[in-house]
């Protein structure tokens, strides 16, 4: 089996195909500290791509509450349980990936969910880890907590779905790393559904073949971010492209946040797929939980996040989230503004680092009324 380099694990690993990185990699960053699970992203995706027959249960984008929310039911705890306890202290992962743990006769360790596992998309929603006792007050990290986890297909560098398909119906585009499932070629074996640990491939019982997130490629090809990103009212997301890990460009906002500042972390890197959606971890959640989910860089990422107010370039990169529907290939902080540029270095957006504050009089003389909001 070929050996490929997985930068998230800091080591080489086995993968059924030769490792060929795309020219640029579709990637997304989510700031979990800002997500309120309003599901606007979910609805934007749903109405754009999956309103058809057989797609009723499909949420190519979903937002679930952690630790008790899952779609499908138990997707992550199920595969973590099958993988077993692994050593993951970093900076090099010494445990098994899902490819290392593949049973004899299988490409990857996986499981096929039951139909009913998709029956409760909002299970665990807003459920906290426990109750606050009388008189208790929250400290950081919180002793009782929950947070929201928005999810799309990770468009992995080493996709499990692609490797599990015996018909090569799934392919990764060399130009942008988007992983697509050929609707003409698929024969509905569901090996991809079984293999993807994130359970982001869905079987369509009407068409009898599988479907998945397409990374909004028609929009992305036109320089526009995905529907889930541009519809996010909380401006928690940015979508763009990442360079190869050894060619990180500090002027690329995604490279800067992920590869250089390591503020945003991959989801379950130990699976070994090199997923390309990245999460700024929630600051209020105990790191012991977050380390399992986002890897060993969690404490450092949270520490970095706390310095954002004094770190102009980092602040500038974060302010680009939700600032424009177009893809920011480059960014620059100049004066009190951050500027986003497209792939041809043309300016597409300019945002002040600090929003101008105007304080109005509490009493409105003209209307003879007191104002409740004066800023």
């Amino acid at each position, binding site marked *: 089996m070929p050996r490929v380099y997985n930068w998230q694990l800091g080591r080489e690993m086995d993968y059924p195909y030769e490792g060929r990185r795309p020219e640029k990699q579709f990637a997304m960053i989510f700031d979990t500290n800002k997500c309120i699970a309003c599901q606007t992203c979910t609805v934007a995706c749903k109405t754009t791509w999956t309103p058809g027959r057989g797609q009723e249960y499909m949420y190519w984008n979903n937002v679930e509450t952690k630790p008790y929310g899952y779609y499908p039911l138990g997707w992550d705890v199920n595969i973590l349980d099958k993988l077993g306890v692994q050593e993951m202290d970093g900076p090099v992962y010494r445990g098994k990936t899902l490819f290392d743990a593949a049973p004899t006769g299988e490409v990857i360790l996986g499981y096929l969910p039951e139909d009913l596992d998709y029956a409760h998309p909002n299970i665990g929603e807003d459920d906290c880890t426990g109750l606050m006792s009388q008189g208790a007050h929250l400290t950081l990290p919180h002793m009782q907590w929950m947070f929201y986890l928005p999810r799309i297909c990770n468009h992995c560098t080493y996709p499990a779905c692609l490797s599990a398909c015996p018909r090569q119906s799934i392919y990764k585009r060399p130009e942008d790393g988007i992983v697509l499932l050929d609707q003409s070629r698929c024969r509905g074996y569901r090996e991809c559904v079984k293999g993807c640990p994130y359970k982001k491939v869905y079987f369509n019982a009407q068409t009898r073949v599988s*479907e998945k997130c397409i990374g909004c490629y028609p929009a992305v090809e036109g320089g526009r971010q995905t529907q889930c990103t541009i519809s996010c009212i909380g401006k928690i997301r940015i979508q763009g492209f990442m360079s190869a890990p050894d060619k990180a460009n500090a002027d690329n906002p995604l490279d800067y946040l992920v590869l250089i500042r390591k503020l945003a972390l991959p989801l379950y890197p130990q699976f070994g797929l090199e997923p390309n959606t990245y999460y700024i971890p929630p600051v209020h959640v105990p790191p012991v939980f977050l380390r399992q989910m986002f890897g060993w860089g969690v404490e450092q990422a949270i520490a970095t996040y706390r310095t954002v107010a004094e770190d102009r370039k980092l602040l500038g990169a974060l302010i680009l989230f939700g600032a424009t529907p177009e893809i920011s290939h480059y960014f620059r902080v100049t004066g009190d503004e951050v500027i986003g540029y497209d792939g041809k270095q043309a300016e597409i957006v300019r945002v002040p680092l600090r929003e101008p504050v105007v304080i109005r009089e509490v009493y409105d003389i003209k209307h003879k009324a007191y104002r409740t909001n004066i800023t």
Partner: protein
Amino acid sequence: MRPRIAILLSTALLAWAGAASAQVALTAVRVAGVGPITDPQGAVWKQARPVHVAMLPQTVALPHNDHPAVHQLTVRAVHNGGWLAFLIEWTDPTLSDRIVLDDFGDQVAVQLPVATTGAPPSPMMGNPGGRVTIMQWRAAFQRDLDTAPPTVRDLYPNAWTDVYPDEVLGATDARPYAGALGLENPVSRGRASPVLDQMAEGWGSMTVKPDQRALGGGIHRDGGWHVVITRPMVSDDLNAPALVPGARSFAAFAVWEGGHGEVGARKAWSPWTPLVIAR
């Protein structure tokens, strides 16, 4: 991975070659009539001698099926000068013809080398340069034809949705929302035959032919399947063998027990069985 497959393939072929001379040939006897032979309960089958075909676990290509549910097929063959037909029967107490995420359908396939002279290609879906034609019957297609293709409400009686694109848009605009159906994926639905007419030149190369010639019919009765697969003996299809009375070739089989989670490579397969087309 490839050297391992090659070794296993060679071992399997050698084992088959050693046993082939002792194998009972499947003789397609001549029966009266014209046109396709598709009735698994037809009287013609009484004239054909059954051959029992041992079915082996598929353990060559990933993913494996170490413990297949079906171990033997009973096969009969007939022809009427125009159409060659196989009756394939096996024990399967569970009828699996509902396809949802975690339910798979029963299937059976017969494979013929395209070339009728020389050594046969690999019995495992052929090999580069060794083309095979594969006719695959599916229980789900049979149900589609016997009743109707199931709607979402048939599959999920409590399903509810406010509106579908095809209810408010014209056919052209609604087509992108139909997924594989919009692209006329041959495994989806809306077929005229329960049998897919296909060709292959090795693992992963299975291709549905643009011109579908294979027909058939299946019935689940007395705890098992009784399936007929038939095709014209001679046609202008360059990817099908021309089998005339007196010809000798080979046939191989594959079977999937949907209730056992068998699909794709997770199947039971057989080596070549000699096939004789009676004069």
